[in-house]
């Protein structure tokens, strides 16, 4: 674990420094004096060679210090930390919504293969997968915020309000739904094909042969087995949960991790980018672990010792 982690930090640090672009240049304003620019470069430690910077950064990391953002001057932990809750709210709600839609629709499509329902589901899922979130977001804003005036255009809370739970939920509905559409499409496809595969298995035929009601066959025998690849998918999505949703966050003024990442890339804010990388690396590891554990629950053939 530790060597992999070290390897990740070395690689990402290298890639960052090899990326063209100068963090100091991104912060200077027209007419700023050359001396002021040099002071900034020194303060960021950019006058030193890469390996010195890396070793210093690693030393600070060992003491739990992720450094300070170049652009805002705030500690990286604060910049990243304040994004975690809004990001989880948005991506979590979207993920939940996409499973709530994707699993039943996928099962239904598989159970009634080549029926009108199946075709409709297929068309809708492809539409959901292929419509750009950006476009979907604007359409959603147009319909629900402008025409019907049911939902706010953007933001996470009412200006000047106290940001209560209901207010938060109200602001969450549109962005989470928009983000869930593509996810639901993918999950539907997964569940459908996985169900079809399982339904061709011997044990399903056996279950049917012994006279079990179709509902029970589906629920007890087919669905549970069909969910295994879906669980893998969910495990893979855990890092994405925190990575945020760049475009949705942009359209809906959502203060998430995706926007922070883009801002940090655009400004070449190395400390922030390294902070995000570290957190992402840890999350991928946790996500895989959780998925492995979930297999054992879903599939009795798998158990860990």
């Amino acid at each position, binding site marked *: 674990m530790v060597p992999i982690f070290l390897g990740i930090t070395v690689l990402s640090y290298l890639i960052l420094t090899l990326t063209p672009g100068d963090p100091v240049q991104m912060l200077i304003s*027209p007419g700023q004096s050359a001396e002021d620019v040099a002071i900034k470069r020194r303060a960021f430690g950019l006058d030193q060679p890469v390996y010195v910077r890396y070793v210093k950064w690693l030393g600070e990391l060992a003491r739990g210090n992720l450094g300070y953002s170049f652009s805002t001057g*705030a500690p990286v932990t604060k910049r990243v930390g304040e994004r975690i809750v809004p990001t989880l709210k948005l991506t979590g709600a979207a993920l939940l919504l996409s499973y709530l839609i994707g699993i039943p629709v996928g099962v239904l499509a598989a159970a009634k293969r080549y029926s009108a329902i199946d075709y409709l589901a297929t068309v809708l899922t492809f539409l959901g997968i292929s419509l750009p979130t950006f476009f979907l977001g604007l359409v959603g804003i147009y319909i629900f915020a402008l025409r019907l005036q049911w939902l706010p255009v953007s933001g996470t809370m009412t200006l000047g309000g106290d940001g209560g739970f209901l207010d938060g*939920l*109200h602001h969450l509905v549109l962005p989470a739904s928009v983000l869930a559409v593509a996810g639901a499409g993918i999950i539907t496809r997964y569940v459908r094909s996985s169900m079809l595969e399982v339904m061709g298995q011997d044990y399903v035929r056996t279950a049917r042969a012994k006279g079990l009601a179709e509902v029970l066959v589906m629920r007890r025998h087919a669905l549970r087995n069909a969910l295994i690849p879906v669980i893998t998918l969910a495990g893979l999505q855990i890092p994405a949960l925190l990575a945020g949703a760049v475009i949705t966050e942009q359209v809906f003024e959502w203060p998430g991790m995706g926007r922070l990442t883009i801002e940090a890339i655009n400004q070449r804010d190395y400390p922030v980018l390294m902070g995000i990388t570290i957190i992402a690396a840890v999350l991928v590891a946790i996500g895989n672990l959780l998925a492995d554990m979930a297999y054992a629950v879903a599939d009795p053939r798998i158990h860990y010792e």
Partner: protein
Amino acid sequence: MKGMRVWLAAIITLVVAALMIPAGAVGAPKSSLVVVSGMWSPPNNFSPINTDSSYGYYVVRFIFQGMMEARLENNQMRFSPALATRWEASADRQTFRFTIHPRATWHDGRPVTAEDVEFTVMTISDPKTETNRGAEIATIAGLTAGGKRVADQQLGFRILGPKSFEVRTKVPVDPQMFFERFGGNVYILPKHVLGSVPPDQLARHPFFQNPTVGNGPFKFVQYKTDQFVELVVNENYHNGAPKVRRVFVRIIPPTTMLAQLERQDLDLSAGFGIGEILIEDWDRVKEMPHVRPVTIRAPGYQFMVFNFSRPYLEDKRVRRAMAHAINRPLIVNQLLKGAGEIAEGPIPPANPYFNAAVKPWAYDTARARALLQEAGWDFNRTIILRVPTGNILRERTGDIIRENLVAVGIKVEIQKSDFPTHLAALTGKNYDIGLIGWAGPTDPDVSSQFRTGGQYNFGHHSIARMDQLLDEGVRLSDPARRKTIYNQFQELFADELPYVVLYYPNGRTVIAKRMSGVNYDIFGLFDYLTYNWVAGPQ
């Protein structure tokens, strides 16, 4: 399929529950006491000496002030009081006296004094302080060209009384320039709050994330990351308490600015370059009954720079040929829908120093071809046009330029990259021609861009006569004589063409009709004399 029904019921309940929340709770509080301003991106921080030049300072100027505020009106610079009530230049244009308003106080009740101003100058000029204000104070005696203190030299700053001080410059300077830079662009720091912070730690001080002690017409309440900055009225503001009680500066992407306006959740866009209306939305904004569209003659421009380290671009006939080849009228009329101006130089048409006698090179493909032939251009050579991504108009301009140049026989390949990469390519001389924009101060000194070795000399050119004129322009303090020099500079510029200035785009901004007393400053931003803002009921 009983299970299915449970799922469906759950989803429907969720959706309905979400929609049931009263729609009245949506959006900004709609009252004459609250104003919402919208800008595209979040501020870096709230440091009056170190935040980003556009978004950050827009917010900072509600909270912190300098001695006065500057605005161009009918080609004349006008100054209005901010912290100072009086400002005067000595006859020799080398000594400047300021008197701070007797009732000017910090938001915690302490008086704003000459000592605060001295502290601010000392902080900015400290070689350890991270700041971008050095150039604003660089004319003061005892400082380097970058505005840093020199060990054994006396600083040209003298406290005359608790509320008055005197600044002495190294040499006589143009008072307009001095007042714009020192008076208008240096925002005063609270000594009693920051006085004990070591200069090299100032940039990371939490105060600049949460600036609770300011001196401006509005007090900082909170910043909701990436969403909005909340400001509340400073009842004790010395120029009279603002009539607007609360200001929200919202961060709104350009694509939803229109939707926010339509829902009346937005009262104004922040201004040139940081909060404008997209050109495709402009017609719809004009039709909205509750808002007033405002066009601003912008202080900034877009240009195409030539890499002078390429021998084949050294001949000025080649550069002029490209100026003739590019269809700038088409770009302005089609792309900008006519909302822009063409001028052959870096001094904006709206600037008092603009030389109207210098006319832009006409769109003339025959002339362009003739000049290329004359200069012996190699028509088999392919040159690289570098275009930064992010600004759609600029990217489209790049496509038009390529077409135009190809039409006169120059082979062009476009290379696009994100802005940091683009900038690195320009400073690294890794391009032939490149697109970029600029918006600078009103003072016509453009040495940093056009002097040999200048910090923003992206073309890496060195033109002796241009250096001479630029040095002369900085040295002179008499505005009339400066005007003559800068007229010559603009003639020379059009002849040498280190850049082809493509267009000066007008700013497209908007103000709710219920608001009055809103004006933009010299940079085209609506953060000018915010204490005069009045908002009616919605």
